[in-house]
């Protein structure tokens, strides 16, 4: 075992998959940034709001006003440079930092696929993704190589595998499998689509989608890894993500996954792809097939492998941290983020905040829209850490308005996957006195139902 593991880490494989991944991923990100910009979301999400919900421990990451446009420009540009492989190391580090900074500014916009992008960028910082078919290698033929350590390609596969398999595991619950929720809610809303529209309001199709979705997520990487099933699996990838793009508003994610999963194809496939592009650009055979190996120095090798090992262990454990919290995960959402739980819930909340003046015993009801964007209000109303952050903001705001030691209470009602709305947090707890932490928030009211499974 030890020997075979050592052998594995000595194994070399083609550098072409890394190059294709780098180009496709960089271009996708660049398009995403451009799309974000053109949709005017920079303004809507990062400039207009009065307050921002920072992540616990990351409140030093502040929104930067109109300079946010510059930040997005840098991010988009570095994505393009990564695709080109020009000043790769600097570009990918810049991409990782700028993208992650953007995501950390406001958790309102948290999406699993943004987290996936950040993680992938982080990993790519350490990969020799510029030794093949890159501007760097074009300028400096010394670094050109067509062989790289096999694990540098496999780490990306592993990353994708965790995303899919954890997303699949998360679907193994009674709401998803037995009640076909929330698909039973979502699919009929698209029943005016041509051809498939009428199907979407049938009673059985949400079950088919739910079970197929779970099976897909759990098994797709295995079918992609096995040569004989690969082509069939990839067609499934396209159909599955194509359908999700059609049915749900999930932006670029389906397309990112469609190109990212190309990494599972053979070295031969990628080499052919590169040869073809090389021929089109008239780059010459010696550039696309240099017949050289890339190796890290033993010390670098050790460092990178250590970093990756830690990363993988963390990746494997983090989605299970919810087990450390009491209560239903879908209800409390304690340990919900960063766990590849995608599209699992139709959750809606309505939160009314009351601020009591301790000196006069008077109270006012807060106009949430004075302070929050509709998106922020929607997200805040179902997530306890955001409720708490908002309550603290209100306390400070009303202190500035002359309230003496204000107490902040909230009536929050939440519906989850079609259940009737229920009170979400204890309305008698003064939220101004509660502090955020990784501990369980004991002012979350119990969920009066059970959801079995992961």
């Amino acid at each position, binding site marked *: 075992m030890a020997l075979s593991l050592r052998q594995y880490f000595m194994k070399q494989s083609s550098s072409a998959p890394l190059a294709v991944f780098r180009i496709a991923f960089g271009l996708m990100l660049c398009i995403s940034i451009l799309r974000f910009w053109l949709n005017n*979301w920079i303004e*809507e999400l990062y400039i207009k709001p009065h307050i921002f919900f920072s992540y616990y421990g990351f409140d030093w990451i502040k929104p930067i006003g109109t300079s946010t446009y510059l930040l997005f420009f840098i991010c988009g540009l570095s994505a393009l440079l990564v695709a080109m492989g020009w000043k790769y190391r600097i570009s990918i580090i810049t991409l990782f930092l700028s993208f992650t900074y953007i995501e950390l500014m406001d958790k309102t*916009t948290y*999406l699993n*696929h943004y987290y996936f992008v950040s993680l992938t960028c982080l990993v790519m910082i350490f990969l020799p993704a510029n030794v093949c078919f890159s501007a760097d290698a074009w300028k400096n033929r010394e670094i050109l190589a067509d062989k790289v350590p096999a694990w540098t390609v496999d780490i990306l596969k592993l990353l994708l595998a965790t995303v899919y398999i954890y997303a699949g595991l998360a679907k*193994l*619950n*009674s*709401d998803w*499998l*037995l*009640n076909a929720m929330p698909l*039973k*809610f*979502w699919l*009929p*809303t*698209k*029943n*005016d*689509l041509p051809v498939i529209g009428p199907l979407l*309001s049938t009673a059985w199709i949400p079950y088919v989608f739910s079970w197929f979705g779970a099976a897909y997520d*759990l*098994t797709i990487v295995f079918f992609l890894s096995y040569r004989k099933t690969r082509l069939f699996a990839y067609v499934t990838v396209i159909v599955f993500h194509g359908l999700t793009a059609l049915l*749900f*508003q*999930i*932006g670029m994610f389906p397309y990112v996954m469609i190109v990212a999963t190309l990494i599972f194809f053979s070295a031969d496939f990628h080499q052919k792809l590169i040869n073809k592009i090389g021929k089109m650009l008239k780059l010459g055979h010696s550039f696309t097939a240099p017949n050289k190996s890339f190796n890290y120095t033993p010390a670098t090798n050790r460092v990178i492998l250590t970093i990756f090992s830690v990363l993988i262990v963390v990746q494997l454990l983090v989605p299970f941290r919810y087990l450390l919290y009491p209560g239903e995960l879908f209800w409390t959402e304690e340990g919900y983020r960063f766990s590849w739980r*995608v599209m699992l819930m139709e959750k*809606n909340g*309505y939160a*009314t905040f009351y601020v009591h*003046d301790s000196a*006069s015993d*008077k109270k*006012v*009801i*807060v*106009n949430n*829209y*004075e302070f929050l*964007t*509709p*998106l922020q209000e*929607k997200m805040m109303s179902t997530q306890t850490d955001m409720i708490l952050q908002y309550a603290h903001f209100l306390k400070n705001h*009303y202190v500035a*308005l002359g*309230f003496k030691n204000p107490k902040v209470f909230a009536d929050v*009602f*939440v519906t989850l*996957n*079609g*259940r*009737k*709305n229920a009170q979400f947090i204890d309305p008698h707890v003064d939220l101004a006195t509660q502090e955020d932490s990784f501990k369980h928030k004991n002012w979350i009211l119990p969920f009066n*139902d*059970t*959801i*079995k*499974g992961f």
Partner: protein
Amino acid sequence: MVCLIMLSIYACSKKDNSEPVDLNPSFDRKALLTNLADNIIIPSYAGFKIKLDLMVSKCDAFTAAPTVTSLADFRTAWVDAYKEWQKIEMIDVGPSQAQTIRSFFNIYPTNVEAINANIANGTINFDLPVTYSQQGFPALDYLINGLAGSDADIVAFYTTASDAAKRIAYLKKLTAQMNVIFNKVYTPWTTGYRDEFIRKSGTDASSSLAVLLNGYILNYERYVRSGKIGIPSGIMGSTLITPSPEKIEAYYKKDLSKDLALIAQQAVLDFYRGKAFNSSTTGPSIKSYFAALNTKDNNGKLLADVLDEQFVKALAKLNDLSPYFMQQIQTDRTKMTITFDEMQLAVRYMKLDMTSAMGIVITYTDNDGD
């Protein structure tokens, strides 16, 4: 392994944990949108146009010859148009949304200081957001009801006052602006937007129904519940000095605030029920769509009916209030609070139960989810 897990989940799960959800496959959203457009929205706009045109002509008559009589005529036409406005304020989709018509018609409290400065300067650009509170019905309220205690004294501001000509010019500009903005909304509805409205029959964030309902709920939450009741009575807001009566709708007319609130609440209910503007017939409606989705409360009652009853309750509480909210706030504020609470509950049913059942996202940012 996977199958085992699935089986074990199946085995240990109780039957029916959640509310049963039967989605009625046959509900035709195009028919719903058609009814809303043809029988409610466009006729309401047509109805408002008549009242607005009348108001503009009465304004012209008054400005041509300001007398106590022409002032009274103008005022009556203003009241009628203001009441009719309450029926269209909730429509915030397509050209109505693009023009942000509310901003030009009904932002109150009106900014008296700025209005007087505008009159003195003789220049005003009504398209600037900062001027929203210097135009529309609330500005007219001040200019025809709030300048003085008696009508004769008000008329004097338009006849003998040194800046009378400037004030007359402002008045004319005000009504002209309302006319321009309204036509920018009404014309597209009658010339092509109607078909687009009906065509976008999905429920994604850019669909007609999603935008319409977002606007409808926002209007009820912010401009009926908070604007008419919560804020002026001091139930909501930023100050400890509780009531802010200057924030009452039609503050200078005094006895109109309750009427306007009642009409707005009734319009919200009628719209919900899909009641035609010109008759008592009802067609496919938000309510019938909600009912077709078959979501029920704990007592097995359709939430579509629960919400209807909640609107009716709010209407009844509103009816209990004094015609002049200022009086109500000063004599018995709890009645305002009771009304507010009923409205609050209606907001909750709409924002939570109704939109969830319909799969409609409450947000105005067309952003990605996952």
